[in-house]
């Protein structure tokens, strides 16, 4: 038997991310609002940039199996960039 699917938590990188309107480093509201702390802020993998002081960042929902579907991240995001769904 396959395990239960985790909720799907996605961030629209056109709104918040390395090419988005918002630099996630200046916000991080979702990361602080999420009780189980499922988000990670990181440099996009495979993008060439200054290894000492990288300027491009994005947030990924990594520990999605721990998401408790409270939707606080959706509420707190000023850019309406986050969506959470589950089946």
């Amino acid at each position: 038997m396959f395990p239960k699917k985790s909720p799907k938590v996605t961030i629209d990188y056109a709104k918040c991310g390395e090419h988005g309107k918002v630099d996630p480093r200046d916000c991080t509201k979702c990361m602080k609002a999420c009780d189980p702390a499922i988000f990670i802020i990181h440099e996009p993998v495979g993008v060439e940039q200054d290894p000492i002081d990288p300027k491009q960042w994005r947030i990924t929902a990594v520990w999605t199996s721990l998401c408790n579907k409270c939707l606080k991240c959706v509420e707190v995001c000023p850019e309406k960039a986050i969506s959470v769904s589950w089946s």
Partner: protein
Amino acid sequence: MCQWCMKHGAGGKWYMNAKNYSNELADSLLAREYLTEQWRNFENIYIRKIMGFSSIDLGYKLQMPIIGKLLKWNAEKMIHSDSKNRKAVRGDGHFGQVIPLEDAKVILGNLAAEPIIENYCMCRWMQRGIKECCCINFGQLSGVIEKLPRFIPQNLQYKISREEAIERIEKHNKRGYIASVWFQPVPYINAICSCENPECGGMRLRSDFGLHTVYKSEYAIKVNPDKCQACGMCVQKCQFGSLKLVPSLKRVIVDPMKCWGCGICRHACKHDALEIVPRESIPGLRGIY
């Protein structure tokens, strides 16, 4: 004593062996190159694909039939790797153990190789977007972190003396942050952190996914029932939910399997009812780290 004490402890605890702090050891492990690569890529560790899998939705992947078991076996092997070709970007050979304040002070006072710095905690940054200066790093790691502006605190002195390091670890511990000591890469020791659970990347993998990135301390808590006044102050301090106030008993009880032996709860007790005892002295906890 855990298996790492047997291997790298010279008859005692692994983190009390002076050899594991030496520059010669660091050089022989090419630690500077390892640490540079690891720290430049720090926040990417869970995003990168390793053998086709990243940590994204690890909880689901670990539950998958067959693949889950293989992933776990492979992850444990990487975490504890001491092979020559370990990869820094995925943190091969990087793991640690919780320690009580007393042991942290001995390390910072006597064993840690200079220079010592205190920088922003990379885990709290990566997992919460918070920049807090509470990670004490030393030896060859200091020079590596100094070159990365995102970890260096603004408006705060980050190069610190042994005495300052001891003062700071004491302050963090009393605030409720758990002291931990780290191999990076095993057996070279160069960091003492002040962690929160699950904000610490290592504790996250251990407490939520059962991977041995951090070991429980060499101690466990013991409540003195005669001294406990049932105020419950310690209960709020424990980050692992190990303590519970039982009103009818008029005292606090411990779940020994949940206790990591960090000793943080002691700071909250005004009645001297809590002490840490060697883990091995509690029959049910022998060998459980």
